[in-house]
């Protein structure tokens, strides 16, 4: 799905999910903006609903399945459904797995949503789009500017999947490859795939705070100037639960791509609880 710069944009369906629609608007806007620059138009599926988050599958598998399925049913045929949040992606793909293998699940889908399920609907996380772009030639022709930053790539639990979903696309190293092509340097560090604690942040902050502090301390000790997250939920947990004195800033992956395109907006960075603007201006990258 690579797209030439000025040609008519390619349209894909888009599922932003609740975090990007609310707490992480900067994640959403930077992703939409970056895709626009790549000639990809993200078209929100009409009237999408919450994928069920961690809570639905935690206490009621049927509600979790139905919530995911309504979104699948709303996605128009013939174009991929691009997702932004790793956990929404997992919920949607898990529902597709059940639909593929369980006639009862397909029956329920048809009864509730009044149409057969589309076995060809390709749910793909936007990492898959970004890794297909030839970033180096875009630097060559001045389309993007290289970013002089050393970063700790933070995937959280994104790379983990249950065995049944393991044949689906693997996203190991995507941030290192893309941002590396954009001139950034990644550090090797121990907490890259440490879970951020997700919903325990609300009911058990006593568990999450030390985890988050260890992750951010580890990133700083590894020589990173910033952390880059794949997931808006991780981004929020790291920022909200950190109690270190001077933590390094945390960017959404999509913000850095927009920054390289020169289309980052100041009000994205002013929404961060750990202010990244001093680092950006020190590096001459002020948006």
């Amino acid at each position, binding site marked *: 799905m690579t797209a030439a710069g000025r040609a008519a944009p390619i349209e894909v369906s888009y599922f932003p999910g*609740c975090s990007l*629609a*609310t*707490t992480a608007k900067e994640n959403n806007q930077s992703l939409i903006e970056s895709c626009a620059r790549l000639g990809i138009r993200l078209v929100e599926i009409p*009237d*999408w*609903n*919450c994928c*069920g*988050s*961690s*809570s*639905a*599958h*935690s*206490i*009621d*598998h049927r*509600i979790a399945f*139905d*919530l995911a399925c*309504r979104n699948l049913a709303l996605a128009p045929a013939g174009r991929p459904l691009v997702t932004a949040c790793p956990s929404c992606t997992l919920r949607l793909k898990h529902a597709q797995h059940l639909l593929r293998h369980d006639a009862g699940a397909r029956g329920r889908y048809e009864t*509730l949503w009044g149409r057969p399920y589309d076995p060809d609907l390709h749910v793909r996380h936007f990492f898959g789009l970004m890794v297909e772009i030839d970033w180096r030639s875009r630097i060559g022709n001045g389309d993007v500017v290289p970013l002089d930053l050393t970063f700790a790539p933070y995937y*959280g*639990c994104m*790379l*983990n*999947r*249950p*065995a*049944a979903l393991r044949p689906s696309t693997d996203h190991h190293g995507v941030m290192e490859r893309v941002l590396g092509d954009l001139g950034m340097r990644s550090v090797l560090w121990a907490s890259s*795939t*440490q*879970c951020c*604690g*997700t*919903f*325990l942040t*609300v*009911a*058990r*902050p006593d*568990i999450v705070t030390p*985890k988050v502090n260890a992750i951010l301390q580890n990133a700083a000790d590894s020589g990173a100037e910033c952390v880059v997250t794949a997931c808006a939920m991780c981004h*929020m947990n790291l920022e*909200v639960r950190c109690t270190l004195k001077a933590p390094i800033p945390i960017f959404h992956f999509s913000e850095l791509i927009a920054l390289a395109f020169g289309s980052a907006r100041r009000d994205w960075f*002013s*929404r*961060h*609880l750990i202010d990244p603007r001093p680092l950006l201006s020190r590096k001459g990258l002020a948006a």
Partner: protein
Amino acid sequence: MERSEAAMTPPKGPPIRLSALDPQFSREIKRLAGTDFHACLQCRSCSGGCPFSDHMDYMPNGVMRLVQLGLKQEALSCNTIWICVGCHTCSIQCPMAIDIPGVMDALRERALAERVAVIEPDILAFHREVLHSIARYGRTHKLEIMLRYKLKRRDLFSDLDVGLRMLAKRKLDLTPSRIEQIAEIQKVFRP
């Protein structure tokens, strides 16, 4: 190499009564979870990798043993099933490809169906508030989830600083993002 004290200490849970084995329970969880935990060979990779095992009474491998044996009461009342966040750090390391958080999901659901006393009521209260929000708006409204959760616990003031910082940074919308066809969501929540 000498084994550490911790490695030789039996897990913290209550003593296991072998008279209480319930094979029917074992079959039921296997059906619900859709994964064969009988393949578990107790290698403990899951527990070694689990980021939250320090806070669990039974380690994840211990829970696999409980469901293999059909120790229903122990499996349904342990705090492990509530602390587990479903991050799949365990299942990606499991040599037998067991969907360990899938087993935790099944156990949580059974525990609620059988009205077993929930050892982590705050975690359950949070999940219920999230579902309440989805049922009402079709999406999650974080500010309302937090306020209702705190009211239920009669504790409005812990974490107040975090809430205020998020409000100041425009991270908590005052009004919900909601869907139009809410009747379709109500269909989902109808029992």
